[in-house]
């Protein structure tokens, strides 16, 4: 069974970490990740860029593009995609396509800052 582990934290606070502290956290995490990767248990890992870089697409008809991250609390996170796009417009097109196939709800579009593919087979 493949599981997603979703990371939540106070962005203001993580943003206030010193460079050294941030690097030491990433270093400690990479030790755990390496262990999991060797066991073939680690799938893709992504650290997202700050929510200020986020754009939100409300899947209405027509879809509504908003600046900033997803802010509603009535909706729950049900899944995610990783897609490659050369800029925001291309990714918004992809999101609109997906939204047409499955209207309703919201996509939050966040650029990825750090990414590794991992080693898990599935």
């Amino acid at each position: 069974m493949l599981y997603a582990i979703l990371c939540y934290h106070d962005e203001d606070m993580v943003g206030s970490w010193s460079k050294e502290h941030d690097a030491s956290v990433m270093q400690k995490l990479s030790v755990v990740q390496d262990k999991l990767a060797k066991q073939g248990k680690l799938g893709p890992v992504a650290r997202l860029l700050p929510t200020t870089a986020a754009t939100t697409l409300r899947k209405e008809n027509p879809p509504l593009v908003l600046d900033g991250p997803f802010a509603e609390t009535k909706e729950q996170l049900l899944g995610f995609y990783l897609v490659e796009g050369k800029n925001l417009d291309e990714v918004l097109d992809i999101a609109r396509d997906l939204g047409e196939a499955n209207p309703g709800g919201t996509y939050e579009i966040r650029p990825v800052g750090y990414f590794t593919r991992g080693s898990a087979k599935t």
Partner: protein
Amino acid sequence: MSVTDTAWIDAALTSARPQAVGALLRYFRNLDTAEEAFQNACLRALKSWPQNGPPRDPASWLIMVGRNVAIDDIRRGKKQEALPDDDRAISDLDDAEDEIAERLDGSHYRDDILRLLFICCHKDLPPTQQIALALRIVSGLTVKQIARAFLVSEAAMEQRITRAKARVADANVPFETPGAVERSERLASVAAMIYLIFNEGYSASGDTAEIRSPLCEEAIRLARLLLRLFQSEPEIMGLTALLLLQHARAEARFDADGQVILLDDQDRSLWNQKLIAEGAALIDKAMRHRRSGPYQVQAAIAALHARAEKPEDTDWTQIDLLYGALEVMQPSPVITLNRAVAVSKVKGPEAALEMIEPLAPRLSNYFHYFGVRGAFLMQLGRNEEARVAFDRAIALANTTAEAAHIRMHIDRLMRDSQPRNVKAK
């Protein structure tokens, strides 16, 4: 207390500071009282959090505790100020994490932080005082840290901040929720101040870059904070992008001896790709609004440099156009000078030289004018005139790094005008 605890609490106090001091300022309408209240709340946090665990919402906790402590102080007669009317209910609350904190302050969040930043931008304050004040009040850097970043003594910085605070106290910034026009004016002043903080760090020479680069990081943190409050403002996206894209080159800007390395000669593998990606993402977002502005244009120029894997891949035609747009928005001889560099790449040094000739009277004391002019003349093979321009640049250099850089050009001229030239003939 473990090291992790300390790091956590430090980060929590730093990140909560703008909101907490902003709310306390709205409540007490006095900067010193607000700061003192926040300070007291921090002291209590340092005692309470390691024992009781972190509060769910550190900012609300600090606001409530800060208010209670300050009100108690006033009650005990330590202060002569009049009490605000609605203090009783709040003062008697022991549980600062109560939902009421959220309701009291959540709706003001945005304007509180904006006001706190805005009072630092007072028109009568010279830029250096604005920056020092913001770093002290909003960012919470110690006077010692700020003095170090400005390369002045602690006593001098203390005096500077005290004077700035007195000026701000007399200014009577209104505490009512601002209207739309006023809010956008405040936003523009604050954006300019954040850019000043960044430049204070960015304009450092090689030997001081490490001491001053925290100023760049702090400016970026404040810009992101501002953007979170005003998510749909393309110019704030542009400002944040501009700072990120410029700071992305920090590791490549100076050599081991602290000499400045020009963009063309920088090791591009040292550029921070994560910051570049974030800057580019913000420009993408800003462009969708089709409301261009100077920060967006400058960020777009920085992005074109950042995206070029090699100097010769740089899209100079596009940069020339963007500088053209910037000249219209903010006519300034310095921008024309920058544009001329792009023009020299697109149309050659002759066209570029012609473009900067008319700027001479206005830039007669500007180091970069003579540096750029010398470079164009050198490219045209007019070495004698180039030498004169470079000599003038050295006389006007602001830092030893700038002077050293020009001297390098002169050395090249000397080399070129000696045996090698003869051999070529």
